[in-house]
């Protein structure tokens, strides 16, 4: 009788310990998942920073940033001069955008030059009331035409 009681007690104890171990294991696993998530987040941040950094450095090293800035300013000032000049003007810019993989967008009285890495250079030119400047997109040669009412792509 005493031996059977002892066996019952032992089984109960084992069952309780086993349940406790399982619960503890679940908590440990959850904590482990949290830590993994944090590490994954940091890794993602590092990777993003690294990719942006490499792209930016390549953009600078390849001279693309200098070209972008120069071209945005040059085309904005050219349009400004064309706006102010009387008469009809046709203008061909000597720069070929496709060689440097650049894109020029003329929109909202600003010129925006973007490169293959997705970086942009923006420059504003004045709006003249009564003289419309059309929205334009250039990927190769820049050719502009100005008459008495608007400046447009040739």
């Amino acid at each position, binding site marked *: 009788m005493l031996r059977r009681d002892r066996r019952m007690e032992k089984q109960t104890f084992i069952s309780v310990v086993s349940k406790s171990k399982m619960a*503890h294991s679940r908590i*440990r696993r959850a*904590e*482990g998942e949290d*830590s993994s998530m*944090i*590490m994954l987040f*940091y890794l993602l*941040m*590092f990777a993003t*920073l690294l990719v*942006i*950094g490499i792209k*930016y450095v390549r953009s*600078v090293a390849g001279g693309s*940033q*200098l070209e972008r*800035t*120069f071209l945005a*300013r040059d085309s904005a*000032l050219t349009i*400004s*001069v064309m*706006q*102010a*000049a*009387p008469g009809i003007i046709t203008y061909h810019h000597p720069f070929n955008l496709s060689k440097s993989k650049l894109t020029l967008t003329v929109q*909202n*009285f*600003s010129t925006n030059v973007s490169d293959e890495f997705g970086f942009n250079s923006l420059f*504003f*030119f*004045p*709006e*003249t*009331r*009564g*003289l419309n400047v059309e929205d334009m997109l250039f990927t190769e040669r820049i050719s502009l035409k100005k008459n008495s009412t608007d400046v447009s792509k040739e």
Partner: protein
Amino acid sequence: MWRNRKGDEDVAFESVMMIPVIILLTIMFLTYVFMTDAFIKNRTQSAAAEAAIYANRIMFAKECIAYEDGSIRRVYPGIVDLNKVSTERISNCMNFTKEEVAAAIINLSYAGNEKIAYYQEDKARIWSRLAGIAGSGSYFKYVLMNPVIVYDGNKFLNGNISVTVVVPKR
């Protein structure tokens, strides 16, 4: 069991210690970006050209103050239409979508009279005082002074014009 907990604590500690490292790396990256940007902007500085272009635009464009013969639609650069010399007119021909681009003061003197017009008057006054200070955050001032013929609607008079354009060095 103790070993696992210690391992987790180590990971958590390392995670917290990574925060200053990431902040430092971000600061280093942004410093590089801003310094490169400032260098390139300095190399492609076009404030002098911008100011000269805007001054000439005010002076010679028919949309600004240049006289235009309405009957033959001919523009006479160098002849100023007195009726066009007004702040409203200049604001119409020099209207930027972004305000922080240019400011101007037009001072016309003729036959003992004087007429002044502005483009962004407040900015023109403040930026004129700040112009000339060295550095990329400063301003550049360009003054175009010319003897001109002034047309007042009836007759042509002799006069002098001073167009002051101030642009930020961007």
